[in-house]
């Protein structure tokens, strides 16, 4: 680990020059000769019967090349994990974002005008917008063919004996917490260009986070269109933000495919900001009933959680977030007895998806708020309660997670020290401190049958390297981390490493950018390939230099003998000799890394990840009792990352994640009224700006994860996981009121203060 030249250094992102000069090409910038522009007509009602749909006037508009409706889609073709979502709807619409028709035209303006010429008559139907209503016996069914509005997803985790533990606990608390819809707000809106060649093979220009899985989805779609055995190629443009939003394929992509097939032209669909707000899938809102107990010494005895999630009208990955919520529910702190039951419920609201943290922020908000209540009841300082119950290396948790490296205690101590906890706590002067911890997957997550990533390394004739990785860079900087690992292992400057990551025709398979897995999994894949190519180089160079390969090393692009410094050759020269000779060869290596983690068994138990990421956030706030405004005076974000491969980018994840978390805690909320979004733009849906940034101290704790590349674990999501409960707990310390419903707005604080004073 010593003498690292590239890994562990603050190296600027290798794609920063493209982005800082405006030269990076995003999906918005992709142009293909003959390209048409697609636009989608959405429902005007969240629940209605379509009485009439007449596209004839739109079809006659000059410049219009195709108008499509549900009847142009293959019958029974459905998308989403429950296959409950037809890309174009007919008969009934179930939500305000239901796609009912689409147009391809020579310009976006003509496409837009054509939409206005489509005549639709609806019979509005009463809707269900509250999941608790939708769960009731005899409630109207959102999907008539389903027997219940509760999804057939048996989220149920039982560890130990919760009822017995309740009887044996010295202190017990119970309460209900709820969270809101928030949305990713990627600056680059969703979009794609679908393009068929003469043989009906599809090329999809995309900003997906899951190129390999999207390829699979589109192959299925082509089969449904009757196009069997066709090739699908995904080419990713530079991705203008992900945060989980691009973890599924969406109706608009299938509509673009349909329009391209009909017109035989490339068809581009780019979302407006308005569409990005109402027609993409937000973080799901939750209602969580939680109960905790501890013994007289503060050791946790049980955790009992019941949760209802508003699934919306269709099903995407959002419905599977309980699988990740189980992680903190079963394993955040040592808790021997756990029960978790979650129900996802169809409503006429928007449907939900993955968003950074994948359910973990919602679960951790309930857990960590409840733990503060328990600490108060037990008369123990809340930070002390967490010290008593902190996770440790070597632990096997009730859900059978095998904890390898674990820096939770160190993170808690950093919060204690840097927040000046002892001095600041319990002052009752309008200022207060609070904290919350986190556990997240840090070594991949086996949610699919494979959690793998492939890498191919190709040496050129000049000592430079092309690395083909399955991993997608969505801005977080995975290309740079991969380049650092390859440069370090081979012994060349990072400038000599070129990372190619955006084309399924040339890049190996990868399950996608999710679960904070890319540095760990793609990093290990790059590490494996780089080791193999280094071996090949040394073996070939041994022959050229007439030296034992074991005595050779590579530094700064020079191959040399460690025994005889005279004997050396520039790497490029050696490669040319290997190539330009009778029976010569080009050096290439490939490596597929699939971590040794486990799918859950039927009881949702198993070692989901090879390693787990930990962290603790501590906050000092000042609350204005007159206005209800919360000011963050100090924010400590301590994270166990295993090893910081690039501290510059790592800090960027902590700052960026932290501020998203602060937005989640204190302000962001998609306001839906009877299924309609009321604040779908940046003027009404406020995300934090530079003025909202509190003093954040990122603290990096290194625990050297044995299975991580150079000891690293994941950090993509953890930055926003404990933010909201840490802030809620600090507010409680400051003014003695607990807000249990996110976001924590001044109105809620004033109402709570008023209620308390009564």
């Amino acid at each position, binding site marked *: 680990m010593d003498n690292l030249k590239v890994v562990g250094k*603050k190296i*600027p*992102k290798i*794609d*920063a*020059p*493209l*982005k*800082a*000069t*405006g*030269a*990076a*090409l*995003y999906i*918005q*910038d992709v142009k293909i000769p003959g390209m048409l522009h697609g636009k989608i007509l959405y429902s005007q009602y969240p629940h209605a019967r379509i009485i009439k749909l007449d596209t004839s006037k739109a079809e006659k508009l000059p410049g219009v090349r195709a108008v499509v409706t549900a009847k142009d889609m293959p019958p029974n073709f459905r998308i989403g994990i429950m296959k409950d979502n037809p890309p174009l709807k007919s008969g009934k619409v179930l939500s305000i974002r239901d796609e009912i028709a689409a147009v391809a035209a020579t310009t976006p303006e003509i496409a837009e005008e054509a939409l206005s010429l489509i005549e639709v008559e609806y019979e509005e139907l009463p809707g269900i917008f509250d999941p608790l209503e939708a769960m009731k016996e005899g409630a109207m069914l959102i999907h008539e063919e389903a027997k219940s509005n509760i999804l057939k997803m048996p989220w149920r985790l039982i560890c130990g004996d919760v009822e017995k533990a309740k009887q044996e606990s010295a202190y017990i608390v119970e309460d209900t917490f709820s969270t809101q819809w928030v949305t*990713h*707000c*990627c*600056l*680059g*809106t969703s979009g794609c260009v679908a393009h068929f060649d003469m043989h009906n093979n599809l090329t999809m220009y995309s900003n997906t986070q899951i190129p390999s899985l999207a390829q699979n989805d589109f192959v299925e779609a082509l089969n449904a269109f009757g196009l069997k055995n066709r090739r699908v190629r995904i080419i990713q443009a*530079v*991705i*203008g*933000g*992900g*945060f989980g939003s691009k973890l599924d394929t969406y109706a608009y992509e299938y509509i673009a495919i349909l329009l391209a097939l009909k017109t035989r032209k490339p068809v581009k669909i780019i979302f*407006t*900001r308005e569409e990005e707000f109402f027609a993409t899938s937000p973080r799901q809102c939750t209602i969580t009933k939680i109960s905790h107990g501890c013994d007289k010494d503060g050791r946790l005895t049980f955790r009992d959680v019941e949760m209802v999630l508003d699934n919306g009208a269709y099903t995407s990955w959002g419905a599977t977030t309980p699988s990740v919520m189980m992680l903190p529910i079963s394993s955040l702190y040592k808790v021997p007895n756990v029960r978790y039951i979650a129900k996802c419920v169809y409503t006429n609201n928007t449907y939900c998806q993955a968003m950074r943290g994948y359910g973990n922020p919602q679960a951790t908000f309930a857990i960590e708020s409840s733990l503060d209540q328990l600490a108060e009841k037990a008369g123990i300082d809340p930070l002390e309660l967490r010290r008593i119950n902190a996770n440790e290396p070597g632990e096997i948790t009730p859900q059978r997670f095998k904890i390898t490296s674990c820096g939770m205690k160190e993170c808690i101590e950093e919060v204690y020290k840097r927040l000046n906890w002892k001095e600041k706590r319990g002052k009752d002067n309008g200022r207060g401190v609070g904290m919350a911890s986190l556990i997240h997957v840090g070594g991949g997550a086996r949610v699919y049958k494979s959690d793998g990533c492939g890498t191919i390394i190709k040496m050129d004739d000049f000592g430079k390297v092309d690395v083909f990785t399955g991993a997608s860079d*969505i*801005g*977080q*900087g995975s290309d740079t981390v991969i380049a650092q690992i390859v440069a370090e292992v081979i012994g060349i400057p990072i400038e000599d490493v070129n990372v190619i990551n955006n084309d399924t025709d040339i890049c190996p398979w990868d399950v996608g950018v999710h679960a904070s897995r890319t540095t760990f999994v793609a990093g290990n894949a790059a590490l494996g390939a780089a080791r193999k190519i280094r071996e090949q180089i040394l073996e070939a160079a041994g022959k050229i230099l007439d030296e034992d390969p074991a005595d050779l090393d590579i530094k700064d692009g020079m191959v040399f003998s460690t025994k005889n410094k005279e004997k050396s050759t520039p790497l490029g020269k050696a490669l040319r000799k290997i190539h330009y000779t009778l029976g010569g060869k080009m050096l290439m290596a490939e490596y597929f890394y699939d971590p040794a983690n486990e799918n859950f068994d039927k009881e949702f138990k198993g070692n989901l990840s090879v390693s787990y990421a930990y962290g603790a956030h501590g906050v000092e706030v000042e609350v204005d009792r007159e206005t209800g405004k919360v000011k963050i005076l100090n924010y400590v974000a301590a994270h166990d990352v295993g090893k910081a491969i690039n501290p*510059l*980018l790592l*800090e*960027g994840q*902590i*700052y*960026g*994640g*932290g*501020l*998203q978390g602060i937005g989640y805690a204190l302000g962001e909320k998609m306001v839906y009224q009877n299924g309609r979004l009321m604040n779908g*733009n*940046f*003027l009404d849906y406020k*995300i*934090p*700006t*530079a*003025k909202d*940034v509190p003093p*954040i101290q990122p603290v990096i704790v290194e625990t050297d994860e044995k299975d991580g590349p150079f000891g690293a674990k994941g950090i993509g999501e953890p930055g926003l996981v404990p933010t909201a409960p840490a802030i809620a707990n600090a507010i409680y310390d400051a003014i003695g009121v607990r807000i249990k419903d996110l976001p924590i707005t001044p109105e809620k604080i004033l109402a709570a203060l008023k209620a308390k004073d009564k």
Partner: protein
Amino acid sequence: MKTVKVTINVNNEKIKLQVKPYETLLETLRERLALTGAKEACSLGSCGSCTVLLNGTPVRSCLILTPEVDGASITTIEGLKEDGKLHPLQEAFMEKGAVQCGFCTSGMIMTAKGLLNRNKKPSRAEIIKSISSNICRCTGYKKIVEAVEEASKKMA
């Protein structure tokens, strides 16, 4: 369709165009002149991704109609290089880790350039005030502020 003749100076080059009367400056730059560094992310003037300089002052090019700026000088991110070298702001954004997904970056840099045009040594508070007109979802802004500080120091 009726078109309007305009002459604008873009990145130090005089350009004659015939544009739609309702054409935004952003559309002209991106679609006619292939200057795609300015980004369309909201079309409402609320995010700042499309910021360019109009006679040295930062403006939202999605809110300005090209016929309105006849005779004006426009600078985009593509025109920021000086003597073939990257501008200190561009260098600082790269070095300080102020770039993540990059979609806001052009607008951020042009907003910061506008600030430095009128205030060579802005305080941290002035930098924050200035760039708070622009939205970034990735970075948490901290490193963007540091990058602008660094650039202003280097230019001093």
